[in-house]
């Protein structure tokens, strides 16, 4: 199964992120990865949690603007040149990356995990020989 990411509109105001994290905590949702892209006025918070659909519904109920999209999680060897190797494969395939961020976890011994948003599906990544993780493997159990 594809890895689902929830994005949230963040107004540039103190306490916004704390508010969201508290809403998730109260709903017993565990975050697996988090990334923020910002402009001067607002930001986009991207989240991978153990329960993406529940995350979407609980945040929407709290009047936050959210959207759900598929991303690709790729295992990257945690050593010098690990990421360079992965990115070279992606470049060879002519895939352009819209954004990417890393995921922290102790479950992938010796590896890091990078999350990619591109124009391609995870199948293209897997076919290129990259080690793509499915939803269960990154900790989504919904």
């Amino acid at each position: 199964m594809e890895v689902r990411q929830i994005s949230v509109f963040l107004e540039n105001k103190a306490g916004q992120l704390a508010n969201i994290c508290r809403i998730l905590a109260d709903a017993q949702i565990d975050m697996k990865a988090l990334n923020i892209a910002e402009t001067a006025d607002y930001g986009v918070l991207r989240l991978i949690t153990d329960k993406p659909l529940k995350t979407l519904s609980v945040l929407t109920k709290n009047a936050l603007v959210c959207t759900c999209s598929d991303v690709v999680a790729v295992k990257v060897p945690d050593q010098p040149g690990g990421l360079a190797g992965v990115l070279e494969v992606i470049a060879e395939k002519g895939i352009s990356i819209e954004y990417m961020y890393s995921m922290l976890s102790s479950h992938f011994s010796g590896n890091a995990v990078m999350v990619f948003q591109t124009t391609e599906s995870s199948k293209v990544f897997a076919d290129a020989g990259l080690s793509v993780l499915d939803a269960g493997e990154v900790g989504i159990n919904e």
Partner: protein
Amino acid sequence: MGYYSKEIECASRSEIRRLQDSRLVEQVRYVWDNVPYYRHKMEEKGVKPEDIRSIDDICKLPFLKKDDLRDAYPDGLRGAPKKDIVRIHSTSGTTGKRVVAYYTREDLELWDTCVARALCAADITDEDIVQVCYGYGLFTGGLGLHGGAEKLGCMVLPMSSGSTDRQLQFMEDLQSTVLCCTPSYAAYLAETITEKGLRDRIHLRRGIFGAEAWSEDMRASIEASLGIKAHDIYGLTELSGPGVAYECSEQSGMHINEDHFYAEIIDPDTCESLPLGSKGELVITSLTKKGFPLLRYRTRDICILSAEKCSCGRTFVKMSRPMGRSDDMLIVKGVNVFPSQIETVLIQQGYAANYQIIVDRQNHSDTLDVLIEMTPENFSDNLGKITAQEKSLVAELKAMLGIYANVHLVAPKTIARSEGKAVRVIDKRKI
């Protein structure tokens, strides 16, 4: 298609003019005899009642402005003794003193008739269930629509404003077919109905929305989301309230109740009368009022009058939707800016019509900021897409206004939503 008073609503232009001629002469005489404040203004201008023999002479009369109404507060313009007055209303004036308007029993009767005509023109009958969510009280919206709907024989729900949950409960349980409120509250209700998935459980078919500037795009969006036909209604507390003019099935301009109100268009700067079809400030003269008769009252609303034949059969002159007010028009960097222009762009670009305009002055130069609520439709995980949309919004605003506006996207439901009139403009300039 029904008419409430077909004989007069569809009378020939010459009949209407004859009626206006005689009513103006009577009204001027009545004001001269009963309103010393205006009599004094006439004397200052050297005009006597006998100088006014027909509508053609109306330009000899002095204007009344909002300032006059404030000067004459609380009852300098009252035209009938207190024992004949049965009600007052008052405007929600934003600055200075309020304005109080007085009504005799006959005034209320004619007001209700004007509103009943408006409802008929929107194809509303005594079969309809009319939910009035305008405020009741000093504001004329609630009691005005209430009186007209009751006169027509509708079943009226006197909800007043606010308590959205209760509004929706009644709307669903009593199967309201007509909604009367401000366009911004209608848009808010539509949004809430969609959110709560109540669309299939409501029975609305018509809306009468007024007391606020709104655009064609806003109309289209309310009509689509509620599945209704939305009709505009025009009026001012000073001139009785809603029902001075109303939209028919054509939904293009509002017929003025010309047997009770005479309309002119003037240049707001020079006060010169302008010919039919020109854009300018609407000036209204009451022809039949007793409690609070006003001659040549400057409404500050900018619009166009048209006497073109209307497909509904009515012969009353039509006024366009007000394009802004000569006084809430903002002058930013020397350019005239009307909030309705900004609203039009927002709706075209898929944003909510809930916005706030903040004008300030920094380093001796005006700044224009527009706060806009993010919508789920315009949101994306891709920051590039959001900023591209934002850029296009800024470009469209620039094209519409001629000046640059700083756009700020904010979280939904963070801009205060009033359930009466919306606060759209905050002018922080201290000039």
